């Protein structure tokens, strides 16, 4: 529902005043139109299916592969992890967000069996890349690891990775994991820091897996609601996300490792780390805003300051991406586009066929739809933070409305740089 804004404070003079006023009225950065709603929900559905694989495999790697020095089969998800019940879907859910089942999505299982090439041994699907591109999920995880300390002091997960307590938990796990491997134990004694850093990476595998375990059912449920005619516009879809963020904000973020059937807690649930502070906010910052220049997309000259000096100024995320040059083989965002391509709902498939170059540039078209949809997710994060840290949109106190205004303006300042796609997504012609 869009609120009627009462003119209690003067209009914003920000370059993006129109968008700020829309946010103040309870809207999204993405304009409200039936076409935008159709595109973003369609792409959420196409994203949720591979995400159902990503979170399961991220947890599998964090919990079972752990420090395997030769992880050739880390993308070969065992049945146990395909059957792992999602905590937010199905009958046994802690909080049932999606009305569907808790185990791996049927469309995912169907694709894993046949891919594009047909029924072949799993190893051939893997080598031919006719599979879910886990490399994309790992790129997101690495962005979070590489941009560590970005959400200090609120992200306590990150600070914990440098504590003696964490090191001692890792030490116990490393000794147990390599108990029968004298070569690796020798290497551990020689280069302990390298092993600690690998543990931190494994902890971020777990972090992102637990984050996406929530997002997959959220997107599946949004798709079902849309199919039932339940969303009236883009703000409805955004508000569903805002409510979802609050509902699961307190979900524990932890890292457990299973060695010889025994669970070792590297980051126990009792540390009090939460989905919102230790996973969602760092994820949005690292993946939507910052990431890093992708190899092969464009040449950057660091000496000419084309790559920012400070990590905080990095701006290579989906909110800034030029989707066209990104669309090359092996580039993480392209891997995701390729994954989503397999699960497009028929209405979105038809939409792309009728526009631009139809089948030929479908990856680019869906990449831009994905960009639109992520501006909507970012809007939900901004609105959730406004609700959590500032004031209601209809607050009668003008000082409070002014504080909300300053918050929105600060958020919009991040899109003042020329690479931002905020203005592009305002028009339907950007495809």
């Amino acid at each position: 529902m869009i609120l009627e804004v009462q003119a209690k404070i003067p209009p914003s003079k920000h370059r993006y005043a129109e968008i700020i006023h829309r946010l103040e009225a309870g809207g999204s950065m993405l304009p409200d139109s039936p076409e935008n709603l159709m595109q973003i929900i369609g792409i959420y559905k196409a994203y949720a299916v591979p995400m159902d694989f990503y979170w399961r495999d991220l947890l599998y790697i964090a919990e079972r592969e752990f420090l395997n020095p030769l992880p050739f089969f880390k993308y070969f998800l065992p049945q146990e992890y395909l059957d792992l019940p999602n905590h937010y879907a199905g009958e046994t859910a802690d909080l049932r967000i999606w009305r569907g089942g808790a185990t791996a999505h049927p469309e995912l299982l169907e694709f894993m069996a046949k891919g594009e090439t047909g029924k072949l041994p799993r190893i051939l699907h893997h080598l031919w890349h006719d599979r879910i591109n886990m490399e994309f999920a790992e790129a997101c995880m690495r962005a979070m690891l590489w941009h560590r300390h970005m959400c200090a002091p609120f992200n306590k997960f990150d600070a914990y990775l440098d504590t003696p307590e964490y090191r001692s938990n890792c030490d116990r796990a490393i000794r147990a994991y390599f108990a029968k491997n004298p070569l690796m134990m020798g290497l551990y004694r020689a280069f302990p820091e390298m092993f600690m850093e690998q543990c931190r990476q494994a902890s971020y595998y777990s972090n992102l897996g637990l984050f996406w375990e929530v997002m997959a059912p959220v997107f599946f449920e949004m798709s079902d609601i849309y199919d039932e005619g339940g969303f009236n516009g883009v703000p409805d879809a955004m508000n569903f996300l805002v409510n979802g963020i609050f509902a699961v904000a307190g979900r524990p973020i932890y890292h457990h490792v299973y060695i010889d059937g025994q669970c070792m807690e590297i980051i126990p649930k009792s540390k009090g780390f939460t989905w919102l502070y230790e996973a969602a906010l760092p994820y949005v910052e690292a993946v939507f805003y910052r990431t890093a220049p992708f190899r092969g997309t464009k040449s950057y000259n660091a000496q000419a300051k084309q790559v920012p000096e400070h990590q905080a100024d990095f701006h290579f995320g989906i909110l800034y991406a030029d989707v066209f040059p990104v669309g090359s083989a092996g580039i993480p965002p392209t891997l995701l586009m390729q994954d989503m391509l397999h699960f497009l709902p028929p209405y979105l498939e038809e939409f792309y066929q009728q526009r631009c170059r139809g089948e030929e540039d479908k990856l680019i078209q869906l990449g831009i739809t994905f960009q639109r949809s992520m501006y909507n997710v970012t809007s939900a994060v901004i609105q959730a933070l406004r609700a959590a840290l500032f004031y209601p949109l209809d607050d009668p106190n003008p000082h409070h409305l002014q504080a909300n205004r300053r918050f929105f303006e600060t958020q919009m300042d991040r899109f003042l740089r020329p690479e931002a796609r905020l203005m592009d997504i305002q028009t339907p012609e950007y495809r």
Partner: protein
Amino acid sequence: MADILTLAQGAGCFATLLTAVEVAGLTGALASPGPFTVFAPQDSAFAKLPPGTITTLVQNPPQLGRILTYHVVAGRWSQADLKAVPYVESLEGSRIWIDGSHGFEVNNATVVAADIEADNGIVHILDTVMLMGR
């Protein structure tokens, strides 16, 4: 004078807070000598949170405990003491920002009743549950 816990139990507007304190295993801490300053959200403050928020927190006591300890500060801080500083550090570790320029506000919460004295500290009643991050 009663301790903070007994005071809250008698007030009649802290049913949710008291349940949360019990689930998080912090009942003993609130009855300990302290002294503490407690920013206590009343029942209507918890009711303002979107559906599911409390359910998830109650299922996870350490995470709930973290939100609750964000509402507690070591020492006895009266309204006058608080208005003299820009922020105080909560037991959770994050800052609570004080704004005395328009009434008495802490972060985005308004203090609806201040300076309620107890044996082991002082209580300020809030209309909103505070969350870390400001």
